[in-house]
């Protein structure tokens, strides 16, 4: 039963992710990425993480990608063919090497017991009993407080940096 939902979502996620790098028009690439985010949000829903699913749509699809589009439209990025069509040999070789490394790493990871996963303390019954929004909030402000605060400081630094660069 789960497969009936998972398979189409995974297919859409992969297809749109591939079209992000294959399509020529940057606007189409950005829109494909929005499609990927939607498919991912569907996968989160399948995992009963409603809060994460909706936040994925609000932040990535609703805000960040709109800003991406904004920049692409303002800069009027040309319809440049991607590297694999331009037969740019050094870049092509570099890309091949990196992708092979990534695939190798993935194969090793799947081969070892990492992919089997470790049963955590939060079963889906427990999550449903507490409510997944409440749980995310509680964990974020207790167990993961320091990573959370560090992330926000990094983002703040990025914002200040962007302001400094823009004022120059």
């Amino acid at each position: 039963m789960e497969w009936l939902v998972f398979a189409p979502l995974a297919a859409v996620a992969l297809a749109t992710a591939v079209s992000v790098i294959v399509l020529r028009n940057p606007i189409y690439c950005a829109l494909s990425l929005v499609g990927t985010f939607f498919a991912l949000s569907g996968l989160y829903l399948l995992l009963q993480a409603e809060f994460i699913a909706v936040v994925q749509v609000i932040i990535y699809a609703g805000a960040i990608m709109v800003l991406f589009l904004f920049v692409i439209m303002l800069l009027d990025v040309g319809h440049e063919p991607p590297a694999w069509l331009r037969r740019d040999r050094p870049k092509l070789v570099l890309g091949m090497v990196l992708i092979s490394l990534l695939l190798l790493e993935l194969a090793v990871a799947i081969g070892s017991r990492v992919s089997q996963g470790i049963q955590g303390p939060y079963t889906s019954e427990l999550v449903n009993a507490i409510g997944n929004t409440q749980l995310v909030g509680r964990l974020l402000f207790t167990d993961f407080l320091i990573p959370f605060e560090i992330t926000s400081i990094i983002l703040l630094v990025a914002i200040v940096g962007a302001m400094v660069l823009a004022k120059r």
Partner: protein
Amino acid sequence: MVAKIVVVFGLMLLSVAYLTWLERKVIGDIQVRLGPMRVGPHGLLQPIADAIKLMFKEDIVPQAADRWIYLLAPTLALTPALISFAVIPFGDRIRLFGRTIDLVITDVNIGLLYVFAVASLGIYGIVLGGWASNNKYALLGGLRSAAQMISYELSLGLSVVGVVMLSQSLSLVQIVNAQSMAWFIVLQPIGFLIFLICAIAETNRAPFDLPEAETELVAGFHVEYSSMKFAMYFMAEYANMITVAAMATTLFLGGWRGPFLPPVVWFLVKLFLLIFLFIWIRATLPRFRYDQLMRFGWKVLLPVALANVMITAAFVAMR
């Protein structure tokens, strides 16, 4: 479930049509003229005449337009406007033909966030429509709306955090239930005011209608759209108005709660008063300048909304 969807969807489309009539009538009255009078008594059949006219108009696609996105954009604007109503409760549980029916299409535990997620997608219709038209006025209108809607979405989101803290839930049904003692407008007056201002900005209505400022941008993002595709943008604006008013009712005005009258009537009365207020504001206030809009959003609304969240949090923590 299906019956509820059909009824709500049908009523929504009908209200959108008659909202155009209401807006023209009210603004006509405020400007001491009659408004539509010719088609039917007091122009009551005007929306139907308009709909027929729009369907039969020539459908033009500019030659230099990006055809696919140009055709897709109006749908992207209209769909979010119509589907966000799915989680808004418009009445209490009723008994009909021996069955209990909840007067809400579906009660999800993240209903409030669902509305925000769907609303944030409405921007795509406008931005892409403006870009795909390949027209500088349309592009400027689209870019303005992207900047405006993202800026005001922040304050909009912060303005309802107080409500969430007081009701301890993101489900709109729970939020209405939490207002059985007092409406949240009493406890969150500043939150309500910020919500209302941002809501008008999010629906691109005057005084925040910069994306379509006709005196400088001809008509803004939809300048190249004609026929039914133009009508879809128009419908999206009015459907958004209804959704936003319904959200304000649910979050701050106690939803369907009220004495004597049946719950659905209370909901509709509050909805109508808010929509009337939107029309009234449009007829009264001149449009903001772009820099004023941005300064107001970032330097006034956002800090006030943040302060409101902190004060509410302090009160909730002390309780």
